[in-house]
């Protein structure tokens, strides 16, 4: 399979050579295939954001390489901007970067910088705003008059509008209420379904990504300690709790039930799935009898 993004021996230390030196990435290696949805999990300060900033060339590796479609992204440093259009990144608290007087203009900032013509810019902006669920009545509003969750969606649309091959989001649900969180996750899910893009989401909460990531990277103290399917990662519950990460409570419950000999899947990450599984277990049990 073709790897769309590959990282080799990546190391990075903030403030190298000063008394403030702080190691953030320690010899990271991995490879991601086109169309995958990747979760990046780790405690605060484990190096997630630092890694993501390397993936689209906002930080330059101190050693090691980042390869996009098997090409070193720093091969031609002058063309790093083109990489940034292909690998879109949306930072933590992205609503802090809004600056235009209307939602539409702000979302159009990215495509305009790409040098597209006006019709194309408008087209992409409309598609992006629609795919984050912000209809026409929002377009002329000032982004500063919106609610937190809406602002966040404007900011995400600003990245989607560049139509990147890889969409990277750093803690897209941080600081939102549960409803805002679910909305963001749902829109990312449907964006992925409609456009079949590679998506990378960082989060310190397992629950956020467990539900729909194909594979999960687990970071601990600037090292990549696991990179595997959600199920395989969750099966190492003890190791996870040692590094301060918890698997969802329903999943814990179902793993225990499975151990007790019940005929159910361990692959349950949400309460809804749990209810369905329990109902089918009950019905299955009745059928047997």
């Amino acid at each position, binding site marked *: 399979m073709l790897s769309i993004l590959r990282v080799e021996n990546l190391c990075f230390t903030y403030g190298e050579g000063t008394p403030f030196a702080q190691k953030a990435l320690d010899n990271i290696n991995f490879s991601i295939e086109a169309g995958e949805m990747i979760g990046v999990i780790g405690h605060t300060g484990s190096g997630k954001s630092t890694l993501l900033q390397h993936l*689209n060339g906002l930080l330059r590796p101190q050693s090691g390489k980042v390869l996009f479609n098997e090409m070193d992204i720093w091969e031609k440093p002058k063309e790093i901007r083109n990489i940034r259009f292909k690998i879109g990144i949306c930072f933590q608290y992205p609503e802090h970067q809004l600056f235009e007087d209307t939602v539409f203009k702000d979302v159009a900032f990215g495509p305009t*910088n790409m040098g597209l013509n006006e019709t194309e810019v408008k087209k992409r902006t409309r598609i992006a705003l629609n795919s984050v669920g912000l209809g026409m009545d929002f377009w002329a509003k000032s982004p500063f008059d919106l609610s937190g969750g809406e602002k966040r969606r404007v900011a995400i649309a600003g990245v989607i509008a560049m139509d990147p091959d890889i969409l990277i989001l750093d803690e897209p649900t941080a600081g939102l209420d549960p409803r805002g969180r679910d909305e963001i996750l749902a829109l990312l899910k449907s964006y992925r379904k409609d456009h079949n893009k590679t998506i990378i989401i960082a989060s310190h909460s397992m629950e956020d990504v467990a539900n729909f990531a194909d594979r999960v990277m687990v970071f601990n103290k600037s090292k990549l300690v696991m990179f595997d399917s959600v199920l395989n990662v969750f099966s190492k519950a003890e190791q996870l709790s040692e590094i301060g990460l918890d698997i969802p409570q329903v999943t814990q419950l179902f793993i225990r039930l499975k151990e007790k000999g019940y005929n159910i899947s361990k692959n349950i990450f949400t309460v809804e799935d749990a209810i369905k599984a329990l109902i089918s277990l009950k019905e299955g049990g009745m059928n047997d009898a």
Partner: protein
Amino acid sequence: MLKDITLGQYYPVKSVIHRIDPRVKILLLIIYLVTIFMADNFISLGFIMLTILFTVFLSKVPFKVILKSIKAIIFIVIFTSLINIFFNSSGNVLIEFGIIKITDSGIATAIFVAIRVFMFVVISSLLTYTTTPTNLTDAIEKLLSPLKVIRVDVHSVAMMMTIALRFIPTLIEEVDKITNAQKARGADMESGGIGKRIKSVIPILIPLFISSFRSASDLAFAMECRCYTGGHGRTRMRQLRMTRTDIYAAIFMFVVIACMIVLNHFASFAKI
């Protein structure tokens, strides 16, 4: 990166210079600056330069770090030097070029002024490298306290300075973050003419203003919640105390001034 602007950043090591009482340090800095001004010939200037190098050595702040603060002003220095070279017309003419005359004394003055400015910056930045911002503003509050007699609200001034200093790193961090976010959307900050460059600052400036106002009102609210009502009746957890180090520092300063006066007197042949 913006983080590289270290001007005014505390460098946390233990040294004699770090130990000097901040009030004494500020006073000595002022005297030092005057002494640098007193030097009127290259020999005195050279002597002062040696004492400054010695002080930097004592402070254990790496020279690399000090050089960064010099880098920040290098263009101003080059500019003033050029003005001196081109427009100082006394002395022997070396090159004549239309109305521009380059003279030996012009070049000498330029070099002299450049060295003097560099020393100013080095010794001033040493104060902020070796004193925490809190200590610095405490000291300023103490030193300015006589002004209370003429009804200057010294405490508020000092508090404003503390807060301003405290927020410099936060602002730098914020600028870094916003710049990164806009760069990720393809903002081009490195190329284009001056008009385009000024325009490219707007996507950074507006979010920065908004976040500054937000932090300012958050901070005000947090201070009020902790019953801050100004300087009246406030006590300090850490009192500033003078020690023997301060006496040594004062003696050092005194010796420097004495040598300076003697050198100025005997080296008048090298006068500028």
